[in-house]
């Protein structure tokens, strides 16, 4: 059985408008799937629906089974056990994901205490180990979120997501707000962590080159509909759907000149 099985997922607004329509995909243990689409394609809503975190007024229909638990229609209390343990999310803007009034070390300790029931010395050691794992200095533990850089904050957010030892990591545009060089570092880090832990990855982005770099398969979303899915290679070299073709061609076009100058 796959870790995440999404079938015919539809997200509706209160006024009945469909923002995501009949999207289906599966993520098996250790799989890496990319969701790609332009603004308004419903890619982020799909991720939120999978976690049972849709904003108020929106409803999910269809089915999304995460690690054996049906998320669509489930009560919030039931999902608490699934979130974190089965899947954890890293969002685009790390500053809003961290509590501004709490030192980084404390924030990081919270999920460790909850999920791994650590206390005292072992907890401190686990916090330091978690920081080391995302290549952050121990001193970061004593800093407040606004005192560290955007890249460091995103590393902290990743460390917090990993602290629950999830089987699936959902990353929603995790590097879009970062500088290119920092983006490259964070992507390399994420790539290594997912591989070394055998985690599954659901990576959401508008940037085809980024998605292609960290995932194996891609689902292309357009206005809430999955128009095409396939291996990275097929999507990038043999796109079948007209929309995928235009997306891929645009990416190649932009990159073409740079590839010619600096192969």
């Amino acid at each position: 059985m796959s870790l995440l099985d999404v079938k015919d997922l539809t997200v509706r607004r209160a006024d009945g408008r469909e923002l995501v329509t009949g999207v289906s995909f599966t993520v098996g243990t250790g799989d890496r799937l990319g969701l790609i689409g332009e603004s308004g394609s419903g890619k982020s809503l799909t991720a939120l629906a999978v976690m049972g975190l849709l904003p108020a007024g929106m409803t999910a229909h269809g089915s999304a089974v995460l690690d054996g638990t049906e998320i669509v229609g489930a009560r919030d209390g039931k999902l608490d056990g699934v979130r974190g343990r089965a899947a954890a999310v890293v969002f685009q803007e790390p500053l809003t994901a961290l509590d501004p009034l709490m030192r980084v070390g404390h924030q990081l300790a919270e999920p460790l205490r909850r999920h791994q029931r650590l206390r005292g010395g072992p907890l401190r050691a686990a916090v330091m180990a978690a920081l080391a794992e995302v290549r952050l200095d121990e001193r970061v533990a004593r800093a407040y979120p606004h005192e560290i850089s955007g890249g460091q904050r995103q590393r902290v957010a990743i460390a917090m997501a990993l602290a629950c030892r999830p089987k699936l990591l959902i990353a929603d545009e995790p590097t879009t707000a970062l500088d290119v060089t920092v983006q490259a570092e964070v992507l390399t880090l994420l790539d290594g962590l997912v591989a070394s832990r055998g985690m599954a990855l659901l990576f959401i982005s508008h940037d085809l080159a980024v998605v292609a770099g960290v995932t194996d398969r891609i689902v292309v979303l357009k206005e809430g509909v999955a128009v095409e899915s396939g291996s990275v290679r097929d999507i990038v070299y043999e796109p079948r759907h007209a929309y995928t073709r235009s997306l891929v061609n645009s990416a190649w076009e932009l990159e073409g000149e740079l590839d010619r100058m600096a192969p």
Partner: protein
Amino acid sequence: MNPAGAGPDDAENADRAESHDAANAARAGSGGSAVLEARDVGFAYRKAAPVLTGVSVAVSPGRSLALVGESGAGKTTLLRLLLGLARPSSGRILFDGGEPSGREFRRNVQPVFQDPYSSLDPRQRVGRIVSEPLRSLRLLGSRDEAGDRVAEALRAVGLPADAARRYPHEFSGGQRQRIAIARAIVCEPKVLLADEPVSALDVSTRVRVVELLAELGESRGMAVVMVSHDLTVVAALCRDTAVLERGRVVEQGPTLAVLGSPAHPYTRKLLDSVPRLSRAAGAGGERASRPERP
């Protein structure tokens, strides 16, 4: 894609020599043919570390210059200085060899901003937005003239003439950026200063706006200065590139030379960081960057 118009190799080599001269001229401090120039410019807020130190860049008519760097490099500050919105703490900004002020300067140096949502007044019709420079600079002979010139500018950016009667919110992000470009070119400026003009746009829209900017620069003999962190856009649009790191220009010259054979380690790092399809889904289909799975 080749909107910058760089053709066969020999033409490019000629370019390269030419813009080497332009860059050298800028660095040497002689005005040369530069229309807009920063000469040994420094900028610091009171009691704070300098944002810019000894920056010299120049752009000549019909050419395009990219200011490349990451957040905190001072790109946007440099752009504000070039726009005459702030004065440098040291050094000079020169427009046509003179002071960057007055009506001629305002008319000839026009900006395009990153965010197509905040750059258009939501309560004005597009026609009024686009004609603002004409009205503010009193460049109009008659009332009808405004309508004609707005229509001409809208046509130049590929929007229908009836767009003038509509409001900004009726347009998509890419179309709004075209409206902002129409406003910038309506008074036929010599220099267009664009701050990350396409980074808020979707990829397919991005390509078209880059093409538009390149074409406008070419057909109108406008100099284009573009601030960007995206090297793919820079390679597609700009002939010359200046790389900024922490307020200093670490490398500059023809884009072909700067990106093709980067001399400074920071340029190389920037270049290596660009996510690329050609690497991600390389010919073999296997990613080299991926560590072995256990």
